[in-house]
């Protein structure tokens, strides 16, 4: 009965809000950022005007839009979140977390210039917050700017030594650069802080996979193709390792980045 009733709520109070602001349920599952720096070039940036905000909720104050945006953001409806955060900013909400979260929503949609501008604004408003550094580090990582990314992740963990996600993300950059020892060190830090968080385990398995590939290549270089591997023929073992070959590629490292709070 309630399910049928649901259809009638399309005429409810919130139609304008949904039409103008919300990306809706279909938009809730946004794709993760594209792995290539070129992907950002084709993005259509989500925008909204002050007039559209006023039409959506005529008497709404900035906190109302922040609340709305935060709910959309947690639901991963990044289109709705960008619009609602923008409405809050029109309402003079100069809060760093508003810019940081809108920047992250832009980042997910690969609107890189808008994301970077928002992260910079968030840091300008409050340089003591760790999250904008972590988010900007993620953007730099996706863009292949590993040096800048490492710098931001390092600032993030300095500002918040319990920021497990930032440790994980720095590990990803270290690993993508082939610095597996540094990567494993950061993963251990992340796991000490958040032993139940699956992300560092995923990163560590990727690092071990990459290490195994490197060791296999080293072995083959020294022993030759005819050498026997324990547990199977060289071809079988190498084939098994090659199924994980993407662990060593740039694109896969990017999927290991995590946002955190």
């Amino acid at each position, binding site marked *: *009965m*309630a399910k*049928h*009733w*649901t*259809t*009638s*709520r399309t*005429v*409810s*109070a*919130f139609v304008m*809000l*949904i039409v103008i602001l*919300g990306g809706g*349920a279909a938009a*809730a599952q946004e794709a993760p950022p594209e792995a290539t720096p070129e992907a950002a070039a084709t993005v259509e940036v989500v925008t909204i005007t002050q007039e559209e905000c006023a039409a959506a*909720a*005529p*008497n*709404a*104050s*900035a*906190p*109302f*839009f*922040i*609340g*709305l*945006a*935060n*709910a*959309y953001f*947690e*639901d991963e*409806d990044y289109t*709705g979140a960008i619009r*609602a955060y923008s409405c809050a900013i029109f309402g003079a909400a100069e809060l760093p977390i508003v810019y940081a979260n809108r920047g992250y929503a832009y980042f997910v949609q690969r609107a890189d210039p808008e994301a970077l501008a928002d992260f910079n604004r968030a840091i300008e408003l409050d340089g003591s917050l760790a999250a904008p550094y972590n988010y900007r580090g993620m953007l730099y990582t996706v863009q292949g700017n590993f040096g800048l990314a490492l710098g931001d992740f390092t600032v993030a963990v300095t500002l918040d030594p319990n920021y497990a996600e930032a440790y994980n993300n720095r590990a990803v950059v270290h690993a993508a650069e082939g610095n597996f020892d540094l990567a494993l060190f950061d993963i251990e830090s992340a796991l000490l802080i958040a032993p139940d968080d699956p992300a560092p385990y995923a990163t560590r398995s990727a690092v071990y996979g990459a290490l195994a590939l490197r060791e296999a290549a080293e072995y083959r270089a020294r022993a030759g193709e005819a050498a026997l591997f324990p547990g199977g023929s060289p071809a079988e073992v190498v084939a098994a390792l090659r199924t994980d070959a993407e662990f060593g590629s740039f694109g896969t490292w990017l999927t290991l980045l995590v946002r955190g709070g």
Partner: protein
Amino acid sequence: MKRWMIFGLVALFMVLAAPAMAQDAAPTPIPPICTQFVGEADDLRTSYYMGEGLGFYESGQFSRAVNSFTCILFEIDNSHVPAYMGRALVLTERGDYDRALEDYTRAVELDPNNVSAFNNRGIVHSLLGDYEEAQSDFDRALGLDEGFLIGLNNRAVIRAIQGDYEGAIGDLEEALNQTDIQAVIDDLRDPERDPEAPPIRDYTLNEARPYALLGVIYSAFALSSYQDYLLLTGQNADFRIQSAAGALESRFTFDLRLSDGTWLLVADFAPEG
């Protein structure tokens, strides 16, 4: 000694019975988690949680939406009518009709002129099958605003469910008179009309809706008449009427069923806080 034994037994009974007696008491509500805008002015916090509740509601995260609205009522202002309205909307969506009724009732206690609260409470009564209560609420909404189209729509549905087809048709005709939508129809049907031209005025889907409901209710009326005829004639009934009645009965069992809540319209309220 005997007195002390009795006292001891009573005391023992009290100790043993206490947990069972405690279970009969109302459960302690779980306090909401309200960590945003802590320390800010009440009006800012209220606005934030209204927005958050609405966002979670639209996202289908009903428990979190309830938490948001409860933050207002529990921590900031236990007489904030939009928060009761918002929470009741979520509770209705979640099928928690009893608690939704409580919230709407609180809303109308706080604001006895709240047309939307009466209307939406009427919907909950209808979903519970309490059609007299539902009609009473739609009556009260229309008593406050006689041109309330949503109320006319809803009362027509409830009247039809209860077999008052004439009353239902009267409500829908009143709704059509309110909007003068007939003028738009006359224009659209004008053979001289330029088919590319826009309608003579903008109109909403809700303005067209009474025509749909009139069709449904006339069909229900027809079915009722067929059934009366079949009752009287039994085996001697005209087979064409048997067939027509069967077809209509099937439609009213499935897609045209008036009692499933889909024909009722939820009333607007200002959620901005």
